[in-house]
């Protein structure tokens, strides 16, 4: 599993202060989501596309991620043009394609892609732990930050455990079928994973207590704002204002 597959580069985008990245992503995403103009939504794509180009991350991987998101959007294209009321532009027998429906689909597609690309370009290019640090610096409640961090840290361990169990099942002749035995086996698998995760969480807390943990995390690295960070912050806010005002 590669959760941090975009975070490994070393471009100026990667090195930006994660706090700025989080704020910029948030502001941009809200503006794009609220925006109702097609042209502005198309223009909005410039921002993440430029950042992705500058970060030098693998375009193939970016397209793979986009494909997943757009697979969901495809469902909108299947239904909305036929059901959304408006001017009929095309008809096949009883089915009528409406202009407004098509435009709405296009709008949603542009918006979702702009937001996803921004998340990849800005948040994806930071290590999860530096995002966690940034969140705690920004005054996000400790419990939320810890939850986010431990999910990330132990997803890998639980994923490995899942594969070990699955391998052990296969070695004993387990084959996936559409029958009760398969469903029951998978239910057991999920069940034991939950139990083991719970046990593990208790051992982790015990290990942390043994090293003097009393409910507070101390941060070793402190973030520092540099020229580029102010630049990105200013650019994203300006660009967002333009998107809001222009149409």
């Amino acid at each position, binding site marked *: 599993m590669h959760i941090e597959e975009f975070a490994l580069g070393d471009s100026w985008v990667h090195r930006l202060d994660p706090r700025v990245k989080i704020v910029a992503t948030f502001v941009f995403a809200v503006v794009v989501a609220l925006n109702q103009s097609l042209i502005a939504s198309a223009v909005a794509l410039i921002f993440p596309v430029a950042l992705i180009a500058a970060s030098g991350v693998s375009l193939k991987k970016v397209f793979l991620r986009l494909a997943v998101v757009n697979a969901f959007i495809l469902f909108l294209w299947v239904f909305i043009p036929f059901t959304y009321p408006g001017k009929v532009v095309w008809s096949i027998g009883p089915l009528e394609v409406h202009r407004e429906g098509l435009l709405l689909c296009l709008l949603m597609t542009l918006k979702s892609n702009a937001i996803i690309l921004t998340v990849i370009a800005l948040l994806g290019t930071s*290590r*999860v*732990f530096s995002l966690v640090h940034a969140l705690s610096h920004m005054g996000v409640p400790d419990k939320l930050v810890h939850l986010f961090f*431990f999910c990330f*840290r*132990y997803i*890998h*361990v639980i994923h490995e455990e899942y594969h070990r169990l699955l391998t052990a099942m296969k070695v004993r002749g387990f084959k996936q079928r559409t029958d009760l035995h398969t469903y029951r086996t998978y239910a057991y698998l999920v069940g034991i994973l939950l139990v083991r995760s719970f046990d*593990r969480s208790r*051992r*982790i807390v*015990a*290990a*942390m*207590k*043994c*090293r*003097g*943990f*009393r409910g507070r995390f*101390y*941060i*070793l*690295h*402190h973030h520092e704002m540099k020229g580029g960070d102010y630049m990105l912050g200013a650019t994203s806010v300006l660009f967002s204002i333009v998107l809001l005002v222009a149409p």
Partner: protein
Amino acid sequence: MIRLRDIHFRYNSRYVLSGLNFAVNPGDRIALLGPNGSGKTTLSHIIMGLLAPEAGEVEIFGKLRRTEPDFQDIRGRIGFLFQDADDQLFCPTVLEDVAFGPLNLGKSSEEAKRIVRDTLAALKLDGFEERITYQLSGGEKRLVSLATVLAMAPEILILDEPTSGLDEATTERLAEILNESALSYILISHDLDFVRKTTNKAVTMRDLNSNGTAREPIHSRVA
């Protein structure tokens, strides 16, 4: 340093420890032996205050320890190495994980970084600072776990099966590290060769439990 008197502990109705007495004195390197399920890990968790005994006294560094704050005082002074390194290493990088203990003890981040460097160097793990903890090999994980414990400058160590899953070379290195250190420790292990190399005393759980009858269910279970 550590004195346990007449400790009773049970899981549900099964007594694992019944009238257990145990003492650790400066210079002791004690091997704690006994079959699976005989209460070795339970005993070590009672010393750390992770489990509370049903009856009996826990005296550590000359004071009776009963409450959570009592035990918080001693946790920096007793280093505990867990059986599974994945439970111990939870930070993303080695630097942060080794610094976790010193920071909890109130060191500044500069001091903590210096301690990390020195500890890693002493274990010949120089240059491991930025490695990702979950990508380390099994042997590396074990040594880094040991570093996280040693970074707190403990007076005594508790090692729970430190050689399980290790290859010969890493086991050998662990034995060297322990022999070169001046620390007292309690070693829980089934690896008799390792025990012979690293300890100067051995006790069995049977010796420690004065009351033999309550132990019966465990023995019949093991048999």
